[in-house]
């Protein structure tokens, strides 16, 4: 099982310190949600975990090997990354877009070996897009496009999947579909880290939640310990009610607190 570990990571974006002294080890087989207010450093952390940015200090380690010293293709086979709000530039067929997830294996979309074809078919099935193979990617609805891009990330069959706000701008049904797919993927033994803004969905789908604030981890643990009214007040600057029912926690945001 692949283990991703972040060790005392500091990242500077220009002159601004975006992340400071982050240490984290998301567990394989579990869905970890990354939450925090805008500008807290969530995307910066996820990009660093994907090996897409150069840390100023500390390192990201994958099974004892430093990501910075890993070959790009090796890293790409181990870590699938789904950036925020991705689109497709050309009206490529859906199957070709999903098949791009096979590039790290040296497999080209128009010449996939049987294993690659199987991976693409499985990925399309898991997001419920079977039958969409030949559709131009640019003709899909927002929800279908999000599922296609998720299938692209799944097709890599990487043991680590990092997704940046995969349910932003999706309707409630598609939000649930995408989160279910991500959780099911985690249950296969993968390490799945997802940035979420919907705290109720984070509470219901994530096994662990990491609250990030001003580039630092405030708290990390199961939803019950992270999502408390006091933490929501200090972390997000909101007065919120946390309600527990049979389905789990719900976070009802009530009013913004005056700025400190």
């Amino acid at each position, binding site marked *: 099982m692949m283990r991703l570990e972040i060790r005392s990571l500091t990242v500077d974006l220009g002159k601004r310190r975006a992340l400071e002294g982050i240490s984290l080890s998301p567990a394989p087989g579990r869905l970890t949600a990354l939450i925090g207010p805008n500008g807290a450093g969530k995307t910066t952390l996820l*990009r660093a975990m*994907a090996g*897409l940015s150069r840390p100023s200090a500390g390192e990201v380690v994958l099974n004892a090997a430093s990501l910075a010293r890993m*070959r*790009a*293709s*090796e*890293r*790409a*086979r181990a*870590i*699938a*990354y*789904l*950036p925020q709000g*991705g*689109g*497709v*530039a*050309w*009206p*490529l*067929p859906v199957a*070709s*877009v999903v098949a*791009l*997830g096979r*590039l*790290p294996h040296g497999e*080209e*979309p*128009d*010449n996939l070996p049987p294993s690659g074809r199987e991976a693409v078919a499985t990925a399309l099935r898991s997001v419920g897009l079977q039958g969409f193979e030949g559709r*131009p990617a640019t003709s899909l609805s927002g929800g279908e496009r999000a599922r296609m*891009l998720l299938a*692209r990330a799944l097709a*890599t069959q990487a043991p680590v999947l990092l997704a940046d706000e995969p349910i932003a701008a999706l309707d409630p049904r598609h939000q649930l579909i995408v989160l279910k797919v991500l959780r099911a993927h985690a249950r296969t033994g993968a390490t799945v880290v997802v940035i979420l803004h919907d705290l109720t969905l984070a509470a219901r789908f994530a096994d662990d939640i990491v609250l990030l604030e001003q580039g630092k981890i405030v708290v990390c643990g199961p939803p019950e310990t992270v999502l408390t009214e006091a933490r929501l007040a200090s972390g997000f600057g909101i007065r919120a009610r946390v309600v527990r029912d049979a389905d789990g926690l719900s976070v009802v945001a009530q009013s913004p607190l005056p700025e400190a």
Partner: protein
Amino acid sequence: MLLTRSPLIPGLLALLVALSLASLVIGPAPISIPMALKALVSYQGAASIVVRELRLPRTLLALLIGWISGLAGAGLQGLLRNPLADTAVFGAPQAAAFGAVLVIYSGLVGTLSWALPFAAIAGALLSIALVVAVAGRSATIVVLVLAGLAVGSLAGAGTSLAISLSPNPFAVTEIVFWLLGSFEDRSMVHVMLASPFILLATLLILPAASGLRALALGEETARSLGINVALLRGRIVAGAAIGTGAAVAVAGSIGFIGLVAPHLVRPFLGYDPARTLVPAGLAGAALLLAADCAVRLIPSGAEVKVGVLTALLGVPFFLWVIARRKAELVEAPA
């Protein structure tokens, strides 16, 4: 991977053979196809001189320059994920022309010198670097086009300045006619001058195919898929600049082939930016050779310059693409 199993490539190759034959026989001196072929391989008096020294070089140049224009256009469109990208958008042909004009103007070399392609390539590279530096890496296409317009205008102004200050009327005539873009009176020396650079540009652009495919999903995703995006950008920009510089150095400014050719083939290839490269190059070669045959058939006193014809046909096409895609162009990031 680069070659497609569709009949497009064999079809384009057959078209190129037919156009090449046509190019060998079209001209003021009437020569039949069998005679042209015979004159090519064995000495047939005047026919051999016409075919080998006049029509063969211009045919080869049209093929080479059309090829690299189509290839560079497809590469840039893939890189910028925008169907309106072309070397002309970066002001590269104007800048290449300015580089070459400076060299001709200085009187150090004639139009048949190795210094010419180097100066033109330097001009093209400089213009693309300037556009990218001004517009920034995540510029929208609108910013890119505006920056390209400014750089192209600056280069054009520089060229005009060189012409107006030139003390030598012969140099002025030489510069002006050469700027218009033509294959008239080109020799095998021009072919030899351009072909190493066009080969180099081809070798830079073709291996970028797989990366262009990944780039369809954006730069971040491409990087996460293990693509070295900086290297990819460098290869395509350098390839486009070297190809444009070499083309401008021997044939003057011939625009819009790189814009049009990828559009013609893309629908047949599932819009795959990798599979578009080779057919776009072949289509570019066919377009330019057809245009060069056409200018020889237009009845006029002096031959119409092929660069003028490609612009006359290319600009309306450019406008048509803009009109069709203007909704996306408002905010599409390059």
